[in-house]
């Protein structure tokens, strides 16, 4: 493991631009929600749910987006899909700026970027047979030909996601949680998307079913060259499926790099603490040194000054309380937002395991 002191205290490098071939890219994306109080809904403040994040997803790639509840990871995913209107920033899909497109102009992009939700039961119409749920996007977008042709296509999709075509006439309540997630995935695949935002797709499922769904998502990616933005709080799951991982804390990305670098050499104290907090299913893991953070995640309405993490950070110093660190390239391909790296500072980073 390379110690931080071995790193040259290089002058701050700006965040590198996304490669030209990025499938989707967001720049300085912001989504703020007004907090209303009182009888007349006076705006009393703003929740900075997403507060200036930049990342891209390459074709065929999985970018993991991790963080704890309220960090803004789901809002970032929804805003990227324009299911929420961005407050500021830019969203580009295959180079085209889609940030301000109206609903009509957005329609062709909707086919190409889809979403898989956490709770498949809440996202499936309980009064519609599973086959119709999967066929619905084809109808809405006027693709997939006539009725018979559509049914044929849906039957293929059912088989592809591991459901039996006979199950097309069953209703959502007749399926188990894992099967419902398969229906959700079939529906999303119907339009042949290029990007799928997966928002906690396995966290509501039992352990043995999680593996089935993760394997299915990886198989589909290999087969169709899909790109995933994989949003989850479970680091082990994100580590398993992603090529690169972004860690969010209170609306900002604090670290972004390939998965091996992130897990071997976390550069942000928050990432270090997160990794350390995850229980490892091995008895030998009981010996490891752990970093246990004190306190709770601060409210996104009333965020700490400077670096938002300084209230829980063991390494915080005066500068952290007053000045927000920028996300910058500390090592090649490894971005972190932490003042510690400005002077080649050393701090012991615990490795999980």
């Amino acid at each position, binding site marked *: 493991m390379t110690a931080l002191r071995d790193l040259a205290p290089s002058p701050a490098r700006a965040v590198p631009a996304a490669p030209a071939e990025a499938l989707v890219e967001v720049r300085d994306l912001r989504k703020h929600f007004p907090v209303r109080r009182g009888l007349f809904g006076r705006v009393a403040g703003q929740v900075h749910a997403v507060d200036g994040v930049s990342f891209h997803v390459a074709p065929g790639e999985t970018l993991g987006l991790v963080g*704890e509840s309220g960090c803004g990871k789901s809002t970032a995913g929804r805003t990227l899909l324009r299911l929420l209107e961005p407050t500021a920033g830019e969203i580009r899909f295959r180079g085209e700026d889609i940030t301000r497109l109206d609903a009509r102009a957005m329609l062709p992009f909707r086919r190409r970027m889809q979403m898989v939700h956490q709770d498949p039961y809440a996202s499936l119409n309980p009064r519609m047979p599973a086959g119709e749920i999967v066929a619905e996007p084809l109808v809405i977008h006027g693709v997939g030909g006539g009725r018979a042709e559509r049914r044929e296509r849906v039957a293929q999709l059912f088989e592809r996601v591991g459901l039996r075509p006979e199950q097309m006439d069953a209703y959502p309540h007749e399926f188990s949680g894992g099967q419902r997630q398969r229906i959700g995935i079939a529906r999303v695949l119907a339009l042949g998307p290029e990007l799928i935002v997966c928002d906690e797709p396995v966290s509501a499922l039992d352990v043995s079913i999680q593996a089935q769904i993760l394997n299915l998502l990886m198989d589909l990616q290999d087969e169709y060259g899909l790109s995933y933005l994989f949003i989850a709080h479970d680091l082990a799951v994100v580590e398993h499926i992603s090529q690169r991982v972004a860690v969010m804390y209170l609306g900002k990305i604090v670290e972004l790099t390939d998965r091996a670098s992130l*897990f071997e050499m976390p550069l942000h104290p928050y990432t270090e603490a997160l990794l350390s907090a995850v*229980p490892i299913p091995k*008895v*030998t893991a009981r010996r490891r040194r752990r970093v*246990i953070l004190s306190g709770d*995640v601060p409210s996104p309405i009333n965020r700490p000054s400077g670096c938002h993490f300084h209230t829980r950070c063991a390494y915080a110093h005066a500068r952290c309380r007053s000045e927000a660190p920028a996300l910058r390239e500390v090592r090649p391909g490894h971005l972190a937002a932490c003042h510690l790296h400005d002077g080649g500072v050393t701090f012991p980073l615990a490795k*999980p*395991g």
Partner: protein
Amino acid sequence: MNQAASAALAGEAAPHRAAGEVVLAVEGLRTEFRTPAGVIRAVDGVSYSVRRGETLCVVGESGCGKSVTALSILRLITSPPGRIAGGRILFEGRDLLALSEAEMERVRGNAISMIFQEPMTSLNPLYPVGRQVAEAIALHQGLSWRDAMAKAVGMLRRVAIPDAERSAAAYPHQLSGGMRQRVMIAMALSCNPKVLIADEPTTALDVTIQAQILELIREQQERLGMAVILITHDMGVVAENADRVIVMYAGRKVEEGSVEALFTRPAHPYTRGLLGSIPHLDDAARGGAGPRRARLAEIKGLVPSLLRLPPGCSFAPRCALADARCREAAPTIARHGDGHAVACWNAGHLAPGAAA
């Protein structure tokens, strides 16, 4: 792993691990629920025991009966539709199932306490949390209200709630999920229980808060020497907290062993499947930066409905080792090495020579 090494390991992980006498024993428990579609045997002949100072983890997926077993211990099964149909629950030698409701009330929340997954549902939203903790103390310890309140604030301080005097006046919704779970723990521990049952106590919490809460439970266990029954679906939580582990599937105990035995020599195909199907965080470091990710081992198929359990072994339809015998007769739990037991006809063939 030899005995000395495993002792050292357990010792290092948690210094309180000194196996005391058995405080609670569940024997052949059967809990049923009547539904319009038929009788569900949620718990079907489960036995386990826990010793003073010991952490027993009960692990399994939804519907396996791990929570119903715990609720049965405290006789919190709503009847109808539920019913404890058989078995004994021995607490310090007394069968709890034979106690009157009034006697049971003196056990519940006093000698045996329980904390749940979502503290919001167990706290009364209309009262300040300090008062709720004090009520439990006043009820069980016969203290004056003033003394009970003082003790409640002391308990809140003990579970590391910042500014305990002021927090005692807060309502549940004013606290974060982690703080609410601390309040629940304060309440559960306020009467120095001999057994703490924690049912998925950290499942609703973020991972950094989970680490805090599990640490808190360990500290308090050490202080009080209580037995802890920790119910979870998270194998990581099991590996880092358990002394012994019970694995449940479809209402039955399928494997039992020390945490070392279970993770190094899992014997039941279901346990092996579970361990194989979870992504391991520390594999990333070894696997390098390669973009190709390995497929996870899957357990095929679905957990069977308790209304339509297959004859024979409930796991047989999903099991790669199942043969005619498995489909005909349910295996009984049998010794599989020291302190290790498994309910599988074919466990002996799984890893020849692996049994201790």
